[in-house]
């Protein structure tokens, strides 16, 4: 990992908290939720229960546990409520950490560009069909 001065690290951390609305949970080896925190509410994740299987509580995590790799990255997962989240899962000593970071701004911009590209592509297909 790259070494950065403490002020840089602290700035990056503060920036993440300010712009990416981090939220997390810890899933134990038995696939039960152990702890959670951060802005889970902004991702419409509420009412979590300790020691209950994560599959039964957070549907987009169903089927991912136990983690087969050291980490998984799920970009731009659309949450209930409309936000997009980048979802990171990675192993820790106490279980698997799940980190959610708000990816809405980047995803919405990507969607705008992608929509244009696909609309253009479909127009070309339509023109070719008419020829």
């Amino acid at each position, binding site marked *: 990992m790259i070494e950065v001065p403490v002020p840089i690290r602290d700035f990056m951390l503060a920036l993440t908290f300010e712009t990416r609305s981090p939220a997390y949970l810890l899933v134990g080896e038995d696939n039960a939720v152990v702890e959670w925190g951060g802005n889970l509410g902004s991702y419409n994740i509420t009412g979590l229960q300790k020691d209950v299987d994560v599959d039964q509580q957070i*549907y987009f995590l169903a089927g991912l546990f136990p983690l087969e790799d050291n980490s998984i990255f799920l970009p731009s997962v659309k949450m209930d409520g409309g936000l997009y989240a980048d979802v990171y899962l990675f192993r820790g000593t106490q279980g698997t950490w799940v980190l959610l970071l708000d990816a809405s701004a980047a995803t919405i911009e990507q969607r705008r560009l992608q*929509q244009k590209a696909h609309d253009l592509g479909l127009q070309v297909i339509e023109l070719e069909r008419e020829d």
Partner: protein
Amino acid sequence: MIQKKICMLGTFAVGKTSLVRRFVESIYSDEYHTTVGVKIDKKVVQLDEQEVMLLLWDIQGEESVQDLRRSYLRGAAGYLLVADGTRRDTLYRTRAIQTVVQDTVALAPFLLLINKSDLTEAWSLEEREIEEMKDKGWQVIRTSAKTGVGVEEAFLTLAQKMLET
């Protein structure tokens, strides 16, 4: 409740999102809105006298198979390959996608859906091409998210296959 994850796969604008909306909400719109990342919907169905929650991962369609985000496929119990019957190249894309997907979810059952079956005048696939897919052992269902034809059949057929696996 049993939960089963299904991934919707196919190149862009074949109707993956429309199929999910038809199945889950019984609605359809002619407007094309591209999907970015993944949107997950849920529907509870009754199979073999038990309730099964289907988790439908509607994954953005990629031009290139190399861009398919394999992490979205993790934990999938089955998948639906979707082609647009008015665009021949989308059918051949499903072959490439299936080759990549089976590396991640080798034993998961899947179906090939040939969507937009209501667009008979623009239909570009020959029967021979569809038979070739069946000859590979693929189960093929013609669907129309617009009219609803084949949609429920597709999802329930896959759900049944997933329970039997």
